[in-house]
């Protein structure tokens, strides 16, 4: 397989009625105020996720019992315009230190507010990991080849 077609990234956008500075701040230091409580990794109930405000900073989940669970880390920290996080959760919402997918968030002035564009990419790595977990021996015809099948949506 000489070229690998990648699955399209997941993209989502939203307009907020606030300047980029404020939008960036709510997204990062205020993440505990909007992150869905249902999306958690630990056994205990979720208190809040935490994004440490620097490149290399941890992105983790703080649970009500004080325990912490890694989600990923900060790859790019450019307030108020850009943030790239490394998401290391599998599709089953388990932390995997070897899995690295990127979540890029851009904050662009839009009228009196801000347009927030989110892109979650490198999802084919998630497929690799998920497959690897279930089958230690991978061969031709394995996940990468299959991903190519699915990714080639336009051909059908």
């Amino acid at each position: 397989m000489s070229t690998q077609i990648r699955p399209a990234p997941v993209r989502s956008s939203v307009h907020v009625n606030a300047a980029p500075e404020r939008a960036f701040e709510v997204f990062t230091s205020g993440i505990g105020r909007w992150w869905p409580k249902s999306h958690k990794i630990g056994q205990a109930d979720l208190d809040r996720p935490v994004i440490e405000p620097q490149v290399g900073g941890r992105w983790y989940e703080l649970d009500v019992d004080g325990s912490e669970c890694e989600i990923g880390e900060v790859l790019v920290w450019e307030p108020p315009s850009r943030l790239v996080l490394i998401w290391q959760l599998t599709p089953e919402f388990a932390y995997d230190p070897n899995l690295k997918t990127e979540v890029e968030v851009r904050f662009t002035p839009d009228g009196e507010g801000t347009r927030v564009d989110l892109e979650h990419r490198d999802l084919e790595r998630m497929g690799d990991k998920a497959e690897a977990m279930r089958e230690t021996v991978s061969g031709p015809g394995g996940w990468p080849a299959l991903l190519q099948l699915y990714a080639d949506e336009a051909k059908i």
Partner: protein
Amino acid sequence: MANAERVFAALNDPTRRAVLERLRDGPRPVGEIARGLPVTRPAVSQHLKVLKEAGLVDDRSEGTRRIYHIDPKGLGAMRAWLDQFWNSALTAFAAEVERSSKKEDK
């Protein structure tokens, strides 16, 4: 998430992956898919059923035959939970920006 799990579970079988490989060049009837595979035709039908339930393949009738093809929405199944997750997360985020801005105005 349930969708993604179903997709991964469906792929966790070498025969099912072989079946999918056979469909990559175009739609095929069951008999043709089964040819050369070391399993019986009913077994292939069973595998196709699992793949169909996972949204990876779809079928149509042609006379008495069932023709299977790769479901282009299969990739969507894998990505569905992330799509849905980020959409709801960003909506909640925008609502929080709104809420906290109002609070500051007061």
